[in-house]
């Protein structure tokens, strides 16, 4: 009994420590926030050019309202830091040492509109959102899909691309359509679906076919590897990387039936409404003038 009490006390202390840290950090931010925000606003005004006149008054108001709650527009002054998982061609992948792809180019275009310098950080897909929430990076861009549950924890920009979840199988597979998967699962067969951790593919598959049939891997390439070795029966993943994987590996095919279609958007911290508004404004312009479509066409070659 004594031990149990000690244990509870220890846990309570952990929590106290945690909340203690949280609030003291907030206070620290408050102190730093004011000068940083003012600097930012001043720096950006000349750089924005045409938009400057329209946006400056709005920004001024916002800045005043928000100053007590948070720091500058971006984590680092004058730099738009983007977090991504560069193993997702053609949205983001390595070309030598640099990360290129649809997301990288769209982010560069947005950064140019906002007069910021773009910096791309490569990390685990699952860590991107945490990094956004904790203010380590400004935006998360990695072919991220908007869902209700996620919207409660992070803001999403306007959607800039449409993603399709498809099914990859081996050429000699018995699975010929998405319905076959459902039929086999319903029949109680030992069917395994490989997915990438924390992706919507994994979420939908778990919802539709149950947790026991879904095996998640840290990245898409590992899931495809598992499919090739016969560890799983099919892989559910976004269409574009699927095309690349199938092209790079013999004996794999993509099923004709699509599993799910979804919208990709940029994730931004809930604490930074201002950045969300600015990015949405920039993104809307880029969509309107065809830049986004151009970038998409450049990487996605119609079959």
């Amino acid at each position, binding site marked *: 009994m004594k031990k149990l009490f000690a244990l509870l006390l220890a846990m309570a202390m*952990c929590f106290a420590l945690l909340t203690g840290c949280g609030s003291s950090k907030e206070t620290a931010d408050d102190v730093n926030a004011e000068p940083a925000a003012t600097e930012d606003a001043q720096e950006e005004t000349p750089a924005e050019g045409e938009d400057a006149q329209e946006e400056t008054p709005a920004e001024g108001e916002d800045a005043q309202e928000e100053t007590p709650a948070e720091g500058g527009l971006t984590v680092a002054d004058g730099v738009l830091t983007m977090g991504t998982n560069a193993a997702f061609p053609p949205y983001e992948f390595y070309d030598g040492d640099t990360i290129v792809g649809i997301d990288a180019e769209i982010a560069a275009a947005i950064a140019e509109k906002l007069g910021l310098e773009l910096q791309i950080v490569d990390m685990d897909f699952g860590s991107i959102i945490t990094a956004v929430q904790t203010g380590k990076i400004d935006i998360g861009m990695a072919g991220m899909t908007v869902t209700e549950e996620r919207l409660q*924890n992070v803001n999403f920009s306007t959607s800039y691309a449409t993603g399709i979840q498809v099914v990859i199988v081996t050429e000699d597979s018995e699975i010929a359509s998405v319905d076959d998967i459902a039929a086999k699962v319903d029949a109680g067969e030992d069917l395994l679906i*490989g997915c990438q951790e924390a992706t919507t593919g994994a979420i939908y598959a778990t919802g539709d076919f149950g947790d026991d049939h879904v095996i*998640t891997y840290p990245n898409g390439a590992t899931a495809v590897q598992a499919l090739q070795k016969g560890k*799983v029966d099919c892989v559910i993943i976004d269409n574009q990387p699927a095309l690349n994987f199938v092209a790079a590996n013999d004996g794999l095919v993509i099923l004709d039936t699509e599993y799910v279609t979804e919208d990709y958007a940029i994730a931004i911290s809930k604490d930074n409404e201002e950045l969300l508004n600015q990015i949405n404004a920039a993104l809307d312009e880029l969509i309107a003038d065809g830049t986004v479509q151009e970038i998409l066409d450049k990487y996605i070659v119609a079959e």
Partner: protein
Amino acid sequence: MEKLIEVLKLGIYQTFILKDNYQYFVRGVGITLQVTLFSLIFGLILGVLVAIIRSAHDQQPENRRNPVLGFFNVLAKIYLTVIRGTPTMVQLLIMWFVIWAGTRSSEANLIRCAVLTFGINSGAYVAEIVRSGIMSIDKGQMEAGRSVGLSYAQAMRFVVIPQAFKNVLPALGNEMITLLKETSIVTVIGLKDLTKGAMIIQGNTYQALVPFFAIAIIYLVMVLLLTWVMGKVERRLRESDLR
């Protein structure tokens, strides 16, 4: 402060209650404990065997060395070098994607692979811990045992090992704790252990604080229990010291 409570409320709701998410933790603890327990047993057996070979070889007189023992000693040394010299995650990936290529990703297979990998890995560390224990016992103990008529095996069994065991217990407990926590890397091969549960919830909800703190606390409690058990065992063994 109010905002923090709001965030925590949402976090706790999404982490545990929504879609019965708490099930991920319950099942995850089961998997983590299974993998840890079987790896521990496997690692302990392997480690003690290797330690006996290594220390028996090293304790021979210089000029009369047994060649058979020498051969096994070399094998043991290679095993220790390779296993201690490569990351556990790499060993796990090699075991699953190279050595066990072609096996289905069923939960039973995944657990078997994890137990084998962690058992072999832990065995290497246990071997050195146990060897340090055997070597720490004064040579005179063995000599005294032999001079009262015990055979080598008997002297080992009744004189050296009991004392050595007591010496290595703290280090062994340490290895067990390390192993328990290290099993969290089984997520890379797709086994749904405790850590994977938190990762799945994070992927569904983009909620990081609560799931990860929850598993941190669960791991902590498991380690506390293990420490408590080891403390009990140590105390019992120490009773014979008080004469």
